[in-house]
């Protein structure tokens, strides 16, 4: 766990080196982790030192500044890409019941899924839209700041071993068919139908440093804000507010909320438990 180079006697040193590393990364590569949860960053960086047999953060910083590939390695460790299809089935149920009828009233609409990771969530959304007969009426943008996961998301290829869990979630979420209707098996993996991915534009976008998307009807950003400090969470909720059309919908992760943020009164609550909000018409 705790890296040998750092222990109870030099906690201050560790914190100083961490702060310097975040500055260095920002100045060199433009990725801004300065307002991510400090403890989370500390754990991940110590973990990274451990598996790469580096003796100090300063040593890691030296290599990161000179070698993009080393930075990309750390980026993978800092961006937690854990995800699954139809994660939190109750959320998808609520989406189907409460939001789909609203979307149906639009002739054409835009969805932005921020922090898409390896794509499981956005394929889930595409399947839901397909089952509701709305896939042809929309454009879906799926973004992440880690290019490596975006490549995986574009492929839409997943391990067969994970599918069982995905099937279970799909059923619990109120899926109308069989999940296997949407993919083909191939050796040890499954590949999701092109019909789904054709509707999705995958793009590199950093929630901390990049700009708004225009006139989006539905934003999903789940399990990303939990990694941010409060001030940064506020900024990103502001970015979502500015990207949404009036009456546009914002969906956050089950443990994320707009409560206590300065945007709280600018949204109506659609589903308190599933963290679904609607931008007020001002």
């Amino acid at each position, binding site marked *: 766990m*705790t890296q040998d180079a750092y222990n109870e006697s030099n*906690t201050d040193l560790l914190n100083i080196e961490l702060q310097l590393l975040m500055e260095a990364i920002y100045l060199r590569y433009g990725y801004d982790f300065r307002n991510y949860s400090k403890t989370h960053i500390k*754990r991940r960086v110590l973990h990274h030192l451990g598996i790469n047999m580096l003796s100090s953060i300063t040593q890691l910083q030296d290599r990161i500044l000179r070698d993009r590939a080393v930075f990309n390695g750390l980026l993978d460790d800092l961006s*937690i890409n*854990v995800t699954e299809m139809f994660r939190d089935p109750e959320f998808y149920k609520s989406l189907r019941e409460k939001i789909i009828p609203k979307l149906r009233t639009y002739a054409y609409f835009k969805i932005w899924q921020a922090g898409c990771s390896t794509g499981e969530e956005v394929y889930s959304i595409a399947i839901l839209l397909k089952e509701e007969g709305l896939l042809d009426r929309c454009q879906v943008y799926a973004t992440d700041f880690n290019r490596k996961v975006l490549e995986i998301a574009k492929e839409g290829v997943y391990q067969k071993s994970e599918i069982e869990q995905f099937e279970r979630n799909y059923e619990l979420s109120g899926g109308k068919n069989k999940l296997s209707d949407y993919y083909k098996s191939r050796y040890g993996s499954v590949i999701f139908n092109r019909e789904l991915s054709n509707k999705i534009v995958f793009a590199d976008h950093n929630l901390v440093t990049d700009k708004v998307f225009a006139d989006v009807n539905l934003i999903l950003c789940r399990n990303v804000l*939990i990694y941010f400090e409060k001030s940064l969470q506020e900024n990103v909720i502001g970015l979502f507010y500015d990207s949404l059309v009036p009456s546009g919908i914002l969906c956050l992760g089950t*443990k994320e909320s707009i409560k206590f943020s300065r945007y709280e009164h600018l949204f109506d609550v659609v589903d308190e438990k599933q963290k679904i909000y609607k931008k007020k018409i001002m």
Partner: protein
Amino acid sequence: MYKAIVMGASYGGLEALKIILPQFPAGFPVPVIVVLHIGDHDNEIFLGYMNEMCPLQVKEAESNEPIRKGFIYFAPPNYHLLIEADFTFSLTTDEKHNYSRPSIDVLFESAAWAYTKNLIGVVLTGANSDGALGLKTIKDYGGMTMIQSPCSALSPAMPGAALKIAHPEFSLKLEGIADKLIELVNSDR
């Protein structure tokens, strides 16, 4: 002066916590933070029940929430619970650790970083080895460490691993744990 108690429990932990937590009196001067392995299940009903039973307020820990005395906090199912240096909670969905999320090690390590010597860590019954390394970290940072004695635990593996790795100061029967914690917290005030 102790500023917080962290507790980890797995198999058999529900029963153990039902005995320990209601013994903390109203006005207990430190927060109690608990990781209980219960799989993916919603723990709303359980928390409601515990809240009824306990003089302290029982609730799920929320992201960014300031940690306050008078509360017993539980990690939400399927998230790791971390303590920040400014004594607020943060949550992550990192990989499972010891096949567990929430993981006791993850909570204990971050708690040791934040509270250093002002912390008491307790490992209760469980069938794995989560919490052992975390308890050692607490000890390394000068905190007080305690386990439920393996022979008195429904499942001895977890306190047993903690005993081996962390050499805790106290190994107590379930019935004696709350009393000892109350004594420790009050004695240095």
